């Protein structure tokens, strides 16, 4: 076997947005009781890392920026096969937008790499809470690394010659790209299926305590580039999206399917939306 691999996976703990609800009376978001989960795309990114580790031997480092509770997401990463987990957490990082976040993650990755250089950096395609898809590209740009977003399959991974061939999903099909390593990929869920973690991993994770890095130690972050100061965007206001006014709903069982549909078609006809396609 050749030399072992080192993969760094950047993850985010997110609220499970499929569980988010809105109070219909006040129009505000109900955050209570919404479980926090590991961003699903990153769960798949980690699986790719585990596959590579199984192939080449080596280590996986996971990294996140977030509140103290984000150690839960990191513990889940340890369960799935990560070796080391780092939480970058400090009040001074609060209210970071994607620019400030990519600064913190990039700087932390540089620090990790001073100990062990990485062969690959992995991010999820996007976080399901913000859906911005900006931090991965931002980090690649800051670290001056080749970037492949929306990676959906690895065709080949040649660690010795530092070359990978990756499939990238775009609207019209699949781009097959060759990139030198190290590189940064953001991944789709198809990149690797989630496997059930072995029991010894679960036990190891239960006893594992993630490292916590502050804004000043072991890395001294530039205060001008973190938190509110380092974030050019601010949230002006937030509101729940208005609902369009509903039309009538009829019950097929009461009216009979045939008549119900005839009524529906009449309504569609009246709206005139199909006039173009009828011709």
């Amino acid at each position, binding site marked *: 076997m050749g030399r072992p691999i080192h993969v760094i996976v950047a993850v985010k703990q997110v609220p499970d947005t499929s569980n988010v609800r809105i109070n219909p009376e006040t129009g505000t978001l109900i955050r209570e009781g919404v479980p926090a989960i590991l961003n699903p795309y990153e769960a798949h990114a980690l699986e790719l890392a585990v596959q590579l580790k199984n192939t080449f031997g080596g280590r996986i480092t996971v990294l996140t920026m977030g509140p103290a509770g984000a150690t839960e997401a990191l513990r889940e990463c340890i369960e799935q096969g990560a070796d080391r987990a780092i939480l970058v957490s400090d009040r001074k990082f609060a209210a970071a937008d994607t620019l400030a976040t990519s600064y913190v993650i990039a700087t932390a990755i540089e620090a990790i790499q001073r100990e062990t250089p990485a062969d690959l950096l992995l991010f999820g395609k996007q976080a399901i809470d913000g859906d911005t898809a900006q931090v991965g590209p931002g980090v690649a740009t800051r670290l001056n690394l080749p970037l492949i977003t929306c990676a959906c399959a690895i065709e080949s991974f040649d660690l010795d010659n530092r070359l990978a061939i990756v499939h990238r999903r775009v609207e019209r099909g699949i781009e097959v790209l060759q990139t030198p390593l190290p590189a940064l990929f953001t991944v789709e869920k198809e990149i690797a299926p989630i496997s059930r973690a072995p029991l010894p991993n679960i036990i190891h994770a239960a006893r594992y305590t993630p490292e916590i890095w502050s804004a000043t130690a072991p890395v001294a972050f530039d205060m001008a580039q973190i938190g509110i100061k380092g974030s050019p965007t601010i949230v002006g206001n937030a509101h729940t999206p208005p609902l369009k006014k509903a039309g009538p*709903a009829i019950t097929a069982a009461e009216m009979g399917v045939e008549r119900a549909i005839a009524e529906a078609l009449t309504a569609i006809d009246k709206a005139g939306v199909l006039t173009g396609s009828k011709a």
Partner: protein
Amino acid sequence: MTSRIWTYIEQEDGRAHPVSWELLGAALKLSRDLPDSVVECVLLGEHVEPIIDQAFSFGASRVYAIDDAVLRHYRNLPYSAGISNLIQQHQPEIFLVGATTLGRDLASSIATRVSTGLTADCTELAIDPKKILAATRPTFGGNLMATILCKTRRPQMATVRPRVLPTPQPLTEWKRGEVIRAPLGMREDDVAVKLLRFVAGEAEEEIEYADVVVAGGRGVGGAKGFALLRELADALGGVVGASRPAVDAGWITYAHQVGQTGKTIRPKLYIAAGISGAIQHRVGVAGSDFILAINSDPNAPIFHIADFGIVGDLNTVVPELTKQIRAAKAAQKHD
């Protein structure tokens, strides 16, 4: 001083993506609220000359073009570096990019290079009283709309998804404005990532730009159920869409997914069968002209946004709908 509002013209193989003109239309609107502003386009690629004229026909007053063999296919490095150089040189006030796979990749890198704020996937753009770009986007899986401002750095960047904005018509009379040609300043050897080949997807239906979309959700029950929807779509000359649960269940591919995490559509007719209508789904279809919802649960939230609702089992309703539409079409032919 003139405020420049820039839009990016996304092109592949010499064809401009329609979202480019949607952005240009939106920029022209913003320009009315921003005193002393001009709307200009940025275009990169190889042999892109014909697209320059198109940009003027949609109302651009100036086009910045970098035409280079290195730019034959989109790659992050040369595109983001080329545009960042233009930005540093010409200092635009606002820069809008399509929130396509390409545009999101590109805009994120540019914003980092020029160290500015970027608001992704906006659904609404406006100029606020202080002459700042107010970019509104859905967050928390579409449960909340947030308006984002970037007060201190320039350009103010935003990406907007295709079909979120109306498609403008080209002007019948237009004049060719100024074209600023810039060198890329990069050779092929400087770009480490190589495109080896492109595998075109299954001749995918253009779900975003279809006039009729027939979509199914969890209630469809399986890949088999989608055959019923396919028949209905065929009868209407439309395409098949799906909600996230149906895609997650593997009944249909992601390319068909409609909603916050899929595509935004604004067809003339949208038929939602067995889709409960979670808010994440609703934000992706709210722009439809007419929504017909079919669901067995009378309390399904999809009925809140439907123009017409049928409470019933889609397995009987959909085939009957197909039958009646076919009958109506046959009758029309005989007329």
